[in-house]
């Protein structure tokens, strides 16, 4: 129900992001989804990729400030309103989404998100029969 996500802390200056991406390129690691959010001073780049553990080690050894964490991943039919329906379920249970991003893969919408209550969110996914994606499914989807 969760997939590995790399969270990379990057300075808000030119070349910082490309350095990270080049390190992954050199190891032939494929990006599946990514998002960069920024503040005035720094940004956090969140990455879903092939071989996340290897990617984590590569970045760490290069001295990049990075953490490997778990985010929820659910698959939705690619029709209007599906994301709204899914997120409404969490809202109704009083769970906040800390951040969310999505991408389309082979006709399916994939929602990636973190909540303020992982345990309850997991229960909701199960009890509502949401189509959760596991780490192993990621490589299958590629």
């Amino acid at each position, binding site marked *: 129900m969760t997939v590995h996500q790399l*969270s990379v*802390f*990057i*300075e808000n200056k030119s070349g910082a992001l490309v350095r990270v991406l080049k390190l992954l390129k050199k190891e032939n690691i494929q990006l599946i989804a990514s998002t960069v*959010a920024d*503040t005035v*001073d*720094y940004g*956090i780049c*969140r990455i879903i990729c092939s071989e996340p553990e290897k990617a984590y080690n590569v970045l*760490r*050894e290069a*001295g*990049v*400030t*990075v*953490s490997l*964490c778990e985010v929820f991943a659910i698959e939705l039919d690619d029709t209007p309103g599906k994301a709204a329906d899914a997120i409404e379920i969490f809202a109704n249970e009083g769970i906040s989404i*800390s951040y969310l991003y999505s991408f389309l893969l082979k006709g399916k919408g994939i929602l990636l998100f*973190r909540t303020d209550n992982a345990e309850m969110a997991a229960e909701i996914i199960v009890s509502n029969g949401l189509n959760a994606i596991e780490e192993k499914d990621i490589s299958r989807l590629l």
Partner: protein
Amino acid sequence: MSYQKFFNPEESYSRSEIEALQLERLQATVKHCMDSPFYKERFRKAGLSPSDIRTLDDLKKIPFTTKQDLRDTYPFGLASVPLDKCVRLHSSSGTTGNPTVILHTQKDLDAWANAVARCLWMVGCRPEDVFQNSSGYGMFTGGLGFQYGAEKVGMLTVPAAAGNTLRQIKFFTDFGTTVVHAIPSYASRLYEVMCEKGIDPRRDTKLRTLVIGAEPHSEDTRKRIENMLGVKAYNSFGMSEMCGPGVAFECPEQNGMHIWEDYYIVEIVDPDTLEPVPDGEVGELVLTTLRREAMPLLRYRTRDLTRILPGECPCGRHHIRLDRMKGRSDDMIILKGVNIFPIQIETILMQFEELASDYLITLETVDGNDDMTVDVEMKDLFIDDYGKLQTLNREITRQLRDEILITPKVRFVPKNTLPKSEGKAVRVVDTRKKY
């Protein structure tokens, strides 16, 4: 194997024994200083003669010696012996004006090695130990100073020098290093690299004792380093003007550094008025050398700020204890009329486990206002949540403001991005407009 407790009998002298020896050596030192044209002229100008020094209190009649005096007499003007009697020269970098030169005779070097050996012995170093000196060599006195001191103890001594961290770690494991000397920021770096290489210092090395000095550091930094490496870390104090390391050192109590009073007479003065501060209060450390042949220094203003810890030390040594250095009088930042020492900021930062050990204080003029920015390095497992990062930032800012009475801007930066010079962390950058 069982050994004697003290390396030298002078270590266990009573106060009266110490003071009697001090007076004898002070009088000899003052007499010897008359062989230096500099001191001869100083005494003449002050209307003083060596025979005026009858008690320890008479020391106060002698004018202070300053770093500027060392610069003005560069390179050999403060020597009290002919140059052909000298066997070693150390020079400190001259970031402002002339560098300074310190000369040594063989007798000076032997006395220096003895002082360092005494310090190391005090914290349990014995001939069966393996001592790795991960400090800069060359002109930096922490290299040769500890080298000769560790050899004097009889330890197998590895002059690993600073840098080449992977090789340092290989030496730890291959040679069974038990004692390391490194500056605090490098000790943290050694640990980081060990972690990256999957080496557990407790499991994979025999490290037991760490000697740290040269960089001001807080008690929290010490504890953090001790926990990381699984060692006892002892604070070392020295300066090239007083040979180098071996001036003062913590005993196993880890509560203040005993300064060897058979080597130095200690005064603590107010840096502005130059009057002695009341007992136990912070002031500038002033030292008079008692065992120096090539270049004795009388009432040398070290510019290090500290205080004498009151009371007796349970370790049985009566040599007074100095509190950890509060910084140097020339490290002091004056911002908006407030006096701030980098160590105050470090003390706060080290309480946050989210932060790595490096930080940088930048002072700059923005729109005519002088501002302080504190860059702090994030550790690896940082929080991937903007809300929590903001809360953390606010908490750090609040605690800093409570300590230094100024609200700095706290900025998170990735690890390993802050500048270092020769392995020593750069702590303060001041780009303020000077009027």
